[in-house]
């Protein structure tokens, strides 16, 4: 399958990255090249093989469900680009 401008524009919207018109062709070409290269994986019969999502040699431990942190609002906001009145701020989303 080959990747066109329209698909790249759609992926970019999903990824929330604004691409300029002139960038779409360049990315389409590069991404298409990468996708063609990874298509060699289709040569392998993977039927019956379990997908591996992590190394997972050990069961993940569970900790007690209790509060271990908190009361650190200022530290959380310390790096926010535009904190306001003790909150993160964003452009208006509700009219």
């Amino acid at each position, binding site marked *: 399958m080959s*990747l066109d401008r329209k*698909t*790249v524009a759609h*992926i*970019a*919207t*999903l*990824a*929330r*990255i*604004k*691409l300029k018109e002139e960038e779409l062709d360049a*990315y389409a070409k*590069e*991404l298409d*090249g*990468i*996708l063609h*290269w*990874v298509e*060699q*994986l*289709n040569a*392998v019969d*993977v039927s019956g*093989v*379990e*997908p*591996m*999502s*992590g*190394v997972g*040699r*050990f069961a*993940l*431990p569970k*900790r007690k469900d209790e509060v271990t942190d908190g009361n*650190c609002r200022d*530290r*959380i906001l*310390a*790096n*926010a*680009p*535009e904190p306001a009145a003790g909150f*993160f*701020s*964003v*452009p208006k*989303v509700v009219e």
Partner: protein
Amino acid sequence: MTKLTDLTVAGALDGLAKGSFSAKELTQAHLDAMVAARHLNAYITETPEKALRMAEASDQRRRAGKAGAMEGIPLAIKDLFCTEGVLTTAGSHILHGFKPTYESTVTTNLWKAGAVMLGKANLDEFAMGSSNMTSYHGHVANPWKRKGDNAVLVPGGSSGGSAASVAARIAMAATGTDTGGSIRQPAAFCGIVGIKPTYGRCSRWGIVAFASSLDQAGPMTRSVEDAAIMLGAMAGHDPKDSTSVDIPVPDFRAGLTDDIRGMKIGIPKEYRVDGMSPEIEKLWARGAEWLKSAGAIPVEISLPHTKYALPTYYIIAPAEASSNLARYDGVRFGLRVPADTLDEMYELTRAAGFGAEVKRRILIGTYVLSAGYYDAYYLRAQRLRSLIARDFTEAFKQVDVILTPATPTAAFAEGENSDDPVAMYLNDVFTVTVNLAGLPGISVPAALSAEGLPLGLQLIGKAFDEATLLRAGQVLEKAANFTARPS
């Protein structure tokens, strides 16, 4: 007398213990060297005041008889580790001005062991690259040059600043991280030792995430013994990273006994790849001979799915990255480009904050995870990952460690390899398998190329058997007797 910056970690610990010099003197010598080598661009942020304060505190602890395992050793910290109150960039513009209010577990462990921070080392943006050319903070120069040629060579990546600083003697050792070869490939390019431990050996807490199922921190040093000392200080269980494993950390240094008699060394036939330099092929054979002379037994093995490792990696790593990097939204930290709507603010911030390679990987990752393509790409890659891991499980029924080249070529010049993303990805051909299987791997400098550049050999070990890996690595190191250094 040896210059303080030429000492190994082991040598410096010895000198500090004897009182031949103080941690403050050792740190000052490195700070002076760091200033003189600024043309390498190995550091993004230098922290000389902090270094001297830490060194003074170290001297006090030593006087009080409380010296730790890395007491007084000055380090470069890859700028992917969050350091409290010190700018942490991940090599990206999107973390503009970010000063964490917390410290990563690995660096916390190092400071508890007495180490001193010289500064934050340059890296490829979000650790995505094999040349250190994708950093927002500029390229890093490899301190090595080809004989009779003044072209600037890349230090490798993504831990390029770490590797260059250790090779150039402007850090005694450095932390790195390795998702597909980012410790081992730059170590090979710069003529130093780098070990990627088993997945789960070191905590990932406080390290800026790239691909969470592959990322692992490790030491970059000028000797295998130094790597053993430093890995011991970095490693250990951390309740804040549920994938860090709660098993004892052995005394790696004590395990360096030189005795590899009867050890079975796997030589995987599938690692003879197209485009590998004949010099590297010869060095690989010589490496097997060295180990054999020390009493080990080379055994030809097969890792049949090797050729699928790179394309598998370049689906899985971008998929995880696209998810991890969703957090850079202009709201909570770093860069923000103002806009009228929330979506536009996200899109403009991320367009301005991420570089081309990071965008490429986020887009690929988003695509392979998107509806309609998930099964064809991502799920298939996860199944291939199982097969690649299984190859190693089978091989390790026959052998104790596996010997391979570290990289297909020596360091290349800036501009070479960079037109085609896939050509650049081929740098990781010998290293990515190890990350996919979650195994430990070490790169040891083994020879100079005809052009006068360092070449490395890699050893791959069984899960959590870094002790055997380091022991065999030190035998290689001694046989290779790599004493060359950048001019």
